[in-house]
Structures are given as structure tokens and as C-alpha cells.
């Protein structure tokens, strides 16, 4: 996030899109709901009638996969009505002239055609957003899990820059990160193309820096593969081993039937986890590890706040801490990796990670610090881009609407979008151990609008088979006013009816995020 969680509550206008916030980031949603209670304007753009619609002043319901169109539509109106922030555009950005041609095309009427959002709503929303003193944009996977996810995000940045809503309290473009330490996993270089703090692996200067710090030679200058790419290769037999730490891709990955084949093709699969997950069950070696309550360390939350994790209980049996297991493998492979404590690791991280350099466990003992924090006397950076952007000037990107990779047809007439429910988390390996959570959300469901259900002549609670070009699952139909006509929602948590048997593994070319939010399916009553 460019801004902090608390900061959202201070915005005059909050635009929430592609985020079912009350279920996926419940406590963060309280900040948005409280803002609404205090009379601030919430604009919600989401195909589903999610809980947050009750708190929103405006709710736009785009056809799935048409985000660029409505964002460009808002910009069209803002420029047309001369509501853009010229001072900000002049001083802080570049490339504005280049987008004008493209934006011109996105008249409210044209946008209505693509998105299904009434032209008047586009106009009204554009005014609300542009005229706000401060406006914050919050988005989540509903924006990123598309083949055009990167462009969706750039479009939102365009919109925010256009109105000068960046780099100040109550503003910003705020991605809500899904899992507890996604931010940290990225910051720490758990990505194929960067070391810690996004230092590029193909930059000779950084390679030298890391070779010196780690006292080794021969680091690869070639950016690696993303998880989806590794699995594609494995399917073809071009990938041989995987060491998986605390993930369960056999539920969470797209197009599971193919992914399964990929995993089974590996010569050697090692899984390190706290449970015998679906993925661990097919491993060659399984290592038992610690859960969060058993170890010392840090997590970085969605607002870049580095916070302490502390040991409260002893781990069961012979389980070991994740880092100790990895270090032991390294040492047995001939490269000694030894640390006495997680804090010692953090000290090493600080030395080669500029944005974490000023953070120490001592400093965050009582409360976290937002990176970038370059020195030990630096207070941390709650709000990014206050005086300039990372690259200097903010760049406007020319972005055109692109249809989703898979569109509906006569055989597969419904759009499937996948997501989460409040009571479960990811693949459920943790939440499904709780009777209470299972009581509130016992099984998978196929959420459909009353109209569509009537057309199919299938009733609430009946079992249905759901088919896509890639697979089939069986689950209960849930007729709900949350759903839009033509769009079906299925949570992906449940192994027994894994929604990812249906999804498309087509990925965004830059962020490599699969298109979980749009694929074509059909539904039939189960015999």
C-alpha cells in the first residue's frame, strides 16, 4: 500500500474495487465502514453484491474483466469536464499527453457498452472522485487476477495521478495483500527476478553485492521462472525438482488437473509444512515445521509495517523451524548456512536490504515500522511518494481494454469468478481444523443469481456439476442476490470441490498472475 490502513479512514472518498474487503480483510474493512458511518463517500466497483455495498454511496457493477474500460471511462469524464489536477500532472508526472488519444475513445456511452455500467453512473462517479479533497483507492485480487492484471493496476494509478490523489494522507493506490506475509515474501526476494528489496538478479552490481555478502561465487544472472511456469514445464517433463515451503499449490493453483500432472512428473518433490496437505501427500519427502505461534521472527503487513512474531507454545513432536531445516539441507549440500537465531538472520537481511536497513528487532519490540526505513534513526515511511515517485516522475501509461483470455459461448455460457469466504483461509489447511469455522462454512457452494437459477430450473441447495473446458466439480447450488446474472462465484478453499479444477492457467505476461477471476463454465443438475 502507498498509504497506511488507518489513513484510509481519513479519506473523503474511498474507491474500493475487486476487493470483498469484509470477508478477505475484515479488520481493514472496519476502517472503510467507519468512514462511511462518519459520512465519507464509499464508491464500490464490483460485480457481486458484496456486504460492502450496504455501506457504499455508489455501487457500480461492471461485467467481469472490463476494469480498464470503466477506469478509462472515469478519466474520460474527468478530462472532458476539466476536473483533472493540472498542477500535480505538471509537477509530478509525465506522459499525460500520450494517454489523451486513447482516453478520448472511452466516452460514457462506449464504456456502458463494454462494462454494462450506465453512462450516468460513470459520469457521477467521475465527478465524485475528482472533486474529492482526498480520495483513496483500495483494490485486491479482483483487479490483479486477470490476464490484464498489471494493466488494471496501472490504470488505477493513472486515475489517481490524474486527480493528484497520490502522495498525501487520505489518498493513494492501495493494494490489499491477501496472505499475512505476501509483502514480506516479496520484500525478501521470494521472487524469480529480484533479491531482497527488489534488487534485480540480472544486474551485475547486485550480483557482486550478494556474492560478496554471502561469500560465494557463481550466482545466476538469469531471472528464474514463476510458479505457473515451473508447473507448465514440469508437465512437459522439463522440470525436475521442487522444494515447497508452507504452500499447498494442489488446491490453490489454476487448472488443477494439469498442475497435478506437472507435480506428478517431477523427479523429486520435497514439501515442508505443518500438515499433510494435498501437496504433501504426493511428496517424496515431507518435513514437519513450526507454525506462527511456535517461532520468533517478523511479518510485513499490507501497509509495509514490519512486525514481530513471537513464540507462545512449543511445537509438537520433532517438528523444526523452517529456516533451520533449509539451512541444514544447505550445509549438507556443502554450503554452510548457520545462524544461532532468527534475529541473527534479520541482522544479515538489514545489511543488504536498503529498505529494511534501519529496522531492528529492538526497535519494533513495541510496535512495527513501515519500510522504507534506511537508517536506525529514521522513523519509517507510512506514506510513499510524498515528494516524488520511485522513478522520479509518475508515468501515465496508455492502456486499452482487452477482453479476458476466455469468453463465454454457447457451450460454456457463464462467467466463473473464484474467491474466498470469511470463515476460511486459502486452502483451508488451518481454518478447517476449527469446528466453529466449519460450522459457519461447511462446504463449497456455487453462487448463482435467482434469475439464472430459475432459467436452469435448479433450486437452492441442489447438487450441481460445474464444467469448464478443463475440468469438472460437484457442489451445492446457492441462489443468492449477491450474484449478478451470468456470473457464478465459487470459493476455492475446498479440496473436495476444488474450484481450481475449472480455472484457466493463462497468466498476465508481466505479473504472471493467473486469470482466476474470469473463465467460462456451464452448470448442470447433478444426477
Amino acid at each position, binding site marked *: 500500500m502507498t498509504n497506511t490502513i488507518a489513513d484510509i479512514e481519513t479519506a473523503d472518498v474511498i474507491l474500493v474495487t475487486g476487493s470483498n474487503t469484509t470477508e478477505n480483510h475484515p479488520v481493514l474493512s472496519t476502517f472503510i465502514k467507519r468512514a462511511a458511518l462518519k459520512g465519507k463517500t464509499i464508491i464500490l466497483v464490483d460485480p457481486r453484491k458484496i456486504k460492502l455495498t450496504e455501506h457504499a454511496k455508489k455501487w457500480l457493477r461492471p461485467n467481469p474483466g472490463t476494469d480498464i474500460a470503466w477506469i478509462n471511462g472515469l478519466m474520460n469524464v474527468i478530462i472532458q469536464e476539466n476536473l483533472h489536477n493540472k498542477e500535480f500532472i505538471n509537477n509530478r508526472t509525465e506522459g499525460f499527453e500520450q494517454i489523451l488519444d486513447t482516453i478520448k475513445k472511452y466516452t460514457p456511452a462506449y464504456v456502458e457498452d463494454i462494462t454494462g455500467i450506465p453512462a450516468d453512473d460513470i459520469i457521477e462517479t467521475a465527478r465524485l472522485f475528482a472533486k474529492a479533497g482526498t480520495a483513496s483507492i483500495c483494490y485486491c485480487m479482483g483487479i490483479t487476477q486477470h490476464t490484464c492484471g498489471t494493466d488494471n493496476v496501472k490504470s488505477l494509478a493513472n486515475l489517481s495521478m490524474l486527480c493528484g490523489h497520490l502522495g498525501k494522507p487520505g489518498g493513494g493506490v492501495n493494494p490489499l495483500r491477501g496472505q499475512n*506475509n505476501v509483502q514480506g*515474501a516479496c520484500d525478501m526476494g521470494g521472487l524469480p527476478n529480484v533479491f531482497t528489496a527488489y534488487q534485480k538478479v540480472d544486474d551485475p552490481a547486485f550480483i557482486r553485492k550478494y556474492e560478496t555478502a554471502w561469500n560465494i561465487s557463481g550466482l545466476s544472472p538469469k531471472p528464474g521462472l514463476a510458479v505457473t511456469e515451473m508447473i507448465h514445464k514440469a508437465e512437459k517433463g522439463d522440470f525436475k525438482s521442487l*522444494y515447497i515451503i*508452507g504452500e499447498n*499449490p494442489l488446491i490453490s493453483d489454476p487448472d488443477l488437473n494439469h498442475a497435478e500432472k506437472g507435480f506428478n512428473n517431477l523427479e*523429486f518433490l520435497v514439501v515442508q509444512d505443518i500438515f499433510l496437505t494435498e501437496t504433501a501427500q504426493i511428496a517424496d519427502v515431507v518435513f514437519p515445521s513450526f507454525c506462527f505461534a511456535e517461532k520468533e521472527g*517478523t511479518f510485513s503487513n499490507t501497509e509495509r509495517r514490519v512486525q514481530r512474531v513471537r513464540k507462545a507454545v512449543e511445537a509438537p*513432536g520433532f517438528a523444526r523451524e523452517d529456516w533451520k531445516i533449509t539451512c541444514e*539441507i544447505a550445509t549438507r549440500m556443502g554450503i554452510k548456512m548457520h545462524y544461532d537465531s532468527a534475529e541473527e538472520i534479520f541482522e544479515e537481511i538489514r545489511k543488504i536490504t536498503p529498505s529494511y536497513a534501519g529496522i531492528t528487532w529492538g526497535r519494533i519490540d513495541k510496535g512495527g515500522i513501515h519500510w522504507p526505513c534506511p537508517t536506525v534513526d529514521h522513523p519509517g515511511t507510512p506514506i510513499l511518494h510524498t515528494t516524488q515517485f520511485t522513478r522520479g516522475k509518475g508515468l501515465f501509461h496508455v492502456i486499452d481494454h482487452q477482453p479476458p483470455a476466455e469468453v463465454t459461448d454457447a457451450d460454456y455460457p457463464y462467467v466463473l469468478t473464484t474467491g474466498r469466504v470469511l470463515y476460511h483461509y486459502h486452502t483451508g489447511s488451518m481454518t478447517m481444523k476449527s469446528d466453529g469455522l466449519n460450522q459457519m462454512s461447511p462446504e463449497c457452494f456455487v453462487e448463482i443469481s435467482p434469475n439464472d437459477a430459475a432459467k436452469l430450473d435448479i433450486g437452492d441447495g441442489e447438487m450441481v456439476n460445474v464444467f469448464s473446458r478443463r475440468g469438472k466439480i460437484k457442489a451445492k447450488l446457492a441462489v443468492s442476490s449477491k450474484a449478478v446474472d451470468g456470473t457464478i462465484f465459487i470459493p476455492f478453499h475446498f479440496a473436495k470441490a476444488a474450484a481450481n479444477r475449472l480455472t484457466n492457467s493463462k497468466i498476465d505476461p508481466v505479473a504472471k498472475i493467473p486469470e482466476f477471476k474470469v473463465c467460462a463454465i456451464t452448470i448442470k443438475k447433478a444426477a
Partner: protein
Amino acid sequence: MGKANTITIDNKPFAFEPSETILEVAQRNNIFIPTLCHLKGTTPTGACRVCVVEVKGARDLVPSCATPAASGMIVRSESPEVIKARRNIIQLMLASGNHNCAIRKFEPDDWTSFHLNVLKEDNYNELCPVWGDCRLQDLAYRYQVTTKSLPVSLANYPMERVNPFIIRDFSRCILCGRCVQACREIQVNNAIDFGYRGAKAKIVAGADVALKDSDCVFCGECVQVCPVGALVPKETFKHKKRFEKTDKVRTTCSYCGVGCQMDLIVQDNKIVEVKGAEDAEPNHGSLCVKGRYGYDFVSSPERLTTPLIRKNGKLEESSWDEALQLVAERFIEIKTKYGSDLMGVLTSARVTNEENYIAQKFTRAVLKTNNIDHCARL
């Protein structure tokens, strides 16, 4: 001047900010004023009146939580009048339900029958489950309240045990309304409200249904703010042993990216309760259902406890030495045979920064490839 923005409490002058209440000035200066219904960050309701103080010149005692401080105001926080009023309030609350924490005073025989009856209603073999952690009990001690002369009032509504996570005990509810404020103004879930009138008054969910059938999302904010034993976490009630040592460990929630700060309450190497950390950003005490109640997995019997190696197609238990050696050898073999770039590591958004760092260091420095990723995009 000098008098502007100065208030006198118990003969001492204090400066105050324009919008501050008497209670806020007092709290800031460590002057004790008891409260029950007051909930920081929400609109004062003045419902319980236990925070009354004496203001010179005012006809009646005033609730300090809802009275703005004013220049020249002279306040007595614990005059005999104030103490009398507070004792009355506390006494009525204690007499209104199953407060069997032995604070209530009866003739010995009456106490026994009262207590036995409560045990029956509670379906529980002990004193009130929040004994020792109850604001009403604290205040009753502080003001030495006796209830000898007051009759036992029977519970109007039976206990609600059908919900996951939360037990609602209406007999111990003092109708302070904190839960309603928390649900409405902090979590903004609007699941509960005051229902019925007078002696029948009750906190109701929706059209007086069980929480599980209402808009309640089991965030537990109401449980955390309830000053008495009227809202009790179900698991804690089952597992926490009274009068036995607990430890409190501050940590970060392991579910979503909000990173709520929480205190794990631990007894005998088991988490028995989770509380939102009220003094910490970003959540100031709030949590959601997963963070507050989704901790069963930690002590699940299904946890992996020993390394496993696939032998003859089946995963079998092994020693650490055997498993580690096998992995190291196989990795070296594959690296030699196929090269580094046919190997990969998936690290995790679930593990710590330190562990992620080690995973990427291992991939790059030991396997010598950049094939490292995590499932965050998924």
C-alpha cells in the same frame, strides 16, 4: 486568564482540550473514575451512570463520560454522594442476575440455593466463568457493595449456547450496551441492538434470533468489550483452567495481510484465548473471526510431528538425519544431472521474513538458480 481551559478535579487544576469530557481529563491525569458502559472511540451513551461525579453548582450528579469539561468547573470525583450513587447502581446490577462470584451477600442458606440454581442454569460446575476478570466484580469490591436486602431476580432468558465461538448469558448481562456500541461503531456490523423494554430488556441479534442466524460475523469485538460474564468465548470456557497460571504473548496474526496485533493467552503449552491488542496499531484491539477464534489448528492432532519419506509408494516416518541426507543427496544428483535451472523452490507468504530470506538464499546460493517464487498471486 489562566482560568481558561482549566478544570479543577479533587482540588487540583488541570488543563483540557476544547472537546474533552470530564472523564477524559481525569483519565489522562490518572484520576480513577469507574466506567462500565464507556467505550473509547464510540459515542457516549451514559447508560450505566457509574461514572457520575459531583460538579459544583449542578443540581444532580453528572455522568463524566458525557459531560464536556468547562472552564472553572469544580469536580469532586469521589464525594460521599458520588460513592452512594455508585453503590446503588452496582448493587442493582449485582442483584439483577446470576452473579454467583460470591460477591453477593445472602444468609448462608439462601446463598447455597442461589448458587446451586445458577450452576444448574449454567450447566457448569463452578463460579462465574469470568471470575477475577470482571469489571462489575472489581467495582463491587472497591465499593464494598452488599446485596443482602435485595431479592434474587430470576433469569429472564436462557443462556444461548447454539453459536460457534460465543456463549451469550443474558442473566449476567448488565445492559451496559458496550457490545452494541462495539458492533455498531467499531466493527460496523450492526448485528445487535437493545430489544424489549423495562424488566424484559435484552440485547437482541436481528429479530431476536441466535447470533449464528443473524448478521453477526463472529468478530468477537463484543466479547472483548463486555465488562462482565455475559459474553464468553466458547473454547476458552471449555479449556481455560481457572486459577492456573497463564502467559500472554504479543504477536502478529498469521492469516491475512492486515497484520493485526494480538495477545495469545497460553496455559499448559496451549493457546486458550486470543485477544486483540488494544494498545497497538493497526487494529487497536479489533480482530476478525479467523484471527480471534481460528487457532485450533495450532494444537491439532493432525499436525506433522516427524519427517516422512516415500518408501515403496508410501510415506513412512523417518529420522531427521535420514530425511535431510536424502534430500541433500537427491538435490545434488539432480543438479549434476540436469543443471540448476530444472530445479525450483516455492517459498511462502505464510512463513516469516527470516525464513523467506533463507529460502531465497538457499535457492540462489546453493541450488544456483533464480527459480524461486511463492503463491501470493494465487
